[in-house]
């Protein structure tokens, strides 16, 4: 890793109402790097993402963004500093048009030009003046990604891009993350249930289970060791059987 880490989670404890769901998590993401966060249901992936975005306050440990401790900084200030989250459930404004979403999210300063964005997400072109509420599920997801990208984020967080979408659309959407990292130089951290697809796109991956980090490494290594992945998902008991 040539660059200093953009995001650094150092012993992070995160959860709800003082009860940690995720414990002692160590994750780094560098600029231009695509990192996958994997794990079965209930592992704590979404909790991690919402905590990094500032929607939840961390319970313990530190969240460093660009070298600064940002634990407890409210989400709207982090968004202005360059953290963009595509949340689970998308959190779109159903009454606003696609164009209005992009205008609003653009913020001040270093925004992405509309042409650049439409080049990444050409499907949005034809529905610029339609309200988000009437878009299809796939279009809504593109809009959620587009809304996050238009502010030219330094760190893009994507939570379950594939939720409720056809595999064809997922195959179309995931490579965009790679382009975001190369073209815009942003760090990308994404959660994905479709492990094989995720490992094709990612540089590195972390696997969470029961709120703890159980495995991490370069994506290429993990691709070659399905047995390790399987045991990390299913618990230690499955490891001997798989090996």
């Amino acid at each position, binding site marked *: 890793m040539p660059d200093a880490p953009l995001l650094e989670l150092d012993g992070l404890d995160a959860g709800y109402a003082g009860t940690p769901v995720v414990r002692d998590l160590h994750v780094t993401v560098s600029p231009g790097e695509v990192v996958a966060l994997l794990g079965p249901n209930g592992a704590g992936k979404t909790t991690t993402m919402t905590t990094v*975005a*500032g*929607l939840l306050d961390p319970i313990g440990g530190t969240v460093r963004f660009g070298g600064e401790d940002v634990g407890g900084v*409210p*989400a*709207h*200030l982090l*968004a*202005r500093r360059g953290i*963009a*989250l595509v*949340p689970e459930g*998308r*959190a*779109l*404004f*159903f*009454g*606003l048009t696609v164009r*209005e*979403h992009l*205008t*609003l*999210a653009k*913020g001040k300063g270093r925004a992405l030009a509309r042409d650049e964005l439409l080049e990444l997400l050409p499907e949005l072109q034809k529905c610029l003046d339609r*309200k988000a*509420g*009437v878009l299809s599920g796939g279009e809504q997801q593109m809009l959620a990604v587009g*809304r*996050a990208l238009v*502010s030219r984020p330094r760190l893009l967080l994507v939570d379950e891009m594939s939720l409720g979408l056809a595999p064809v659309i997922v195959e179309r959407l995931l490579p965009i993350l790679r382009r975001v990292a190369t073209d815009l130089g942003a760090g990308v951290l994404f959660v994905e249930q479709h492990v094989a697809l995720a490992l094709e796109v990612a540089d590195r991956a972390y696997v969470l289970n029961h709120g703890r980090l159980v495995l991490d490494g370069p994506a290429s290594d993990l691709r070659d060791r399905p047995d390790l992945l399987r045991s990390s998902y299913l618990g230690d008991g499955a490891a001997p059987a798989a090996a």
Partner: protein
Amino acid sequence: MSSYILFLLLGLGSGAVYAMLALGLVLKHRAAGVVDFGHGAVAMFIAYVYLGLRADGTLQFPWIVIPHELTLRSSGLATIPAMVVALVYAAILGVVMYWTIYRPLRHATPLTRVCASVGTMLALQAIAVLNYGTTAKSTPTILPSSPLKIGDITIPSDRLWLAGIVILLAAALGAVYRYTRFGLATRASAENERGAALVGLSATRIALGNWVLATLLAGLAGILIAPISTVDPTSYTLFIVPALGCALIARFTSFGVAAAAGLALGMLQSEITKLLSVWSWLPEQGLPQAIPFLFIVVAMTMLSRGVGARGGTVELQNPSLGRPSRPYATTLLCFVAGIVILMALHGSLRTAFIASLVWIVLSLSLTVLTGYVGQVSLAQMSFAGLSGFVLSHLTAGAGLPFILALPLASLAAVPLGLLIGLPALRLRGVNLAVVTLAAAFALDALVFNSTWFGGGLAGRAIPTPKLFGWDLGIAKGDTYPRVIFGVVVLLFTCGAGLLVARLRTAPAGRMMIAVRSNERAAAAAGIDVARTKLLAFGLSAFIAGLGGTLFAYQQQNISPPSFAVFTSLSLLAVTYVAGVGRIAGAVVAGIMLSSTGLFVTAADKWFGVGEYQALVAGVALTLTAIKQPDGIAASPPPPLVALGKKLSGVWAGRRNGDTAPPAATPVGGVVER
């Protein structure tokens, strides 16, 4: 012909006020999702502040007892400085009210916010009455009011000025919302606070900005209308009703429609006053007040769509429901306890307890409607009133005996319930509340205030109830109130409680709860949503009607003011705060919170705080809405819980030998979990 036009133009004055208040309501709703019933009271208060500055240079503060006047100058301020100071005052008041009341409530249900706003309305009105009295005050003109000749009619030019200001304001607001980033951000953050935070917007700050803007508009409306219509605490607060109607026609979104509706409403009312003098066959009473509201009810019902389609988000968080276990035993226990209390109390306290029992019945009507089916009605006192007046006509008029007249009169409210329930098939939530409010207002003005039906100011007498020659009345000779009357009321109250408790676990009750949770899912599960809602409205009207007849027998003489819309408003507020999903909530509402009930009467008798009842009730309402949105009855105080456990343990032990007591908590009414 010209006189028709004259009346139309004269109506622009009140129309401008409705419009300006409606604009503020639209702003508040768009930005903070609050339907603010206290908006008119804010306008009233700022008008008083302006009056104080203008008359003798004093600044009035919204509190009592401790010094609430600050002398800025020995003589009155000029118009412009007084207006500026009053509007700055309004801005600060807006900040304080948003920060202390509505910001903590931003994740609460819409109904909880409505209750908080009703609380602020009652509190501001009470403060105004305590500090300024109820006599109307007037002030010199602000806008140029020289007579203006158009053709052959002459009107004061201030009406045109007012209309012009409203149109300008509406256009400016519309442009801001459509074209500026602030407007876009407001629309976004109102819809999805999480999404707004993710694109770098602070929903709280945006809502605060809008709130201040809306408060400024309310203040401006209050100040500008002061020279035309004198300022007094009640009539100003009541401006909220037509303003809500206009905001509703604008669907709480369009500034242009809100302003146009306000101006049109004012002109329509004024024109009807003129027509009354021409068409003598029109009923004299209440028509100018009633017609516009009938129009609102019909228009809203016709214009609304059925089930929400794709793209419409319906967020419905419901207050928690109780689940009565052992309803018969609890009813019996309550009946015995009630008789003991009736015997133990005397004089005004016994009267207050009977009033509490009546109020419990009225609250139970909301337990069915708002608790079980999630429909908000501000017309409950209209049901009660209709039954009360019908009772008078049946007994005093047709001479029917008590045993026939009481059920018949209670049933008389059912058709009205079904009628008011019709809009509920298409409208939901707070919109429905405003439509029922308009219906209640129209009914009050047109029907109750007719001398034939409601008896006018003198009211209508209710003869003493008699069963086979046995006098059951509340008074006999010098004895007042009599225990036997209390027992009759208690019997009906317990019966109503048992009915509502049984409904909760009966198939019809399950259907109601399914409809409340999700109409589409309920329909998909084979439940006839329309029938279920109408059933609930019918039943609720019947229970409210029963409450109305008991109230009539208790009062011995009833007149229209008892059933005015603001009584319905405070019934809903008090019941909601006590816990609308529980029978115990109705009991708490009746005994602890109602203004004529046991607790308030006792507090007044022993501590002499009657003067402050309205203020305390308002503040308490707002505080409970913030601190305890599920209602007081949802979490009874610990000593009561312990007592309840002990009692139910004894009960269970007696019946089933030594089985462990279940963790049930009786709170006055029916045992609940």
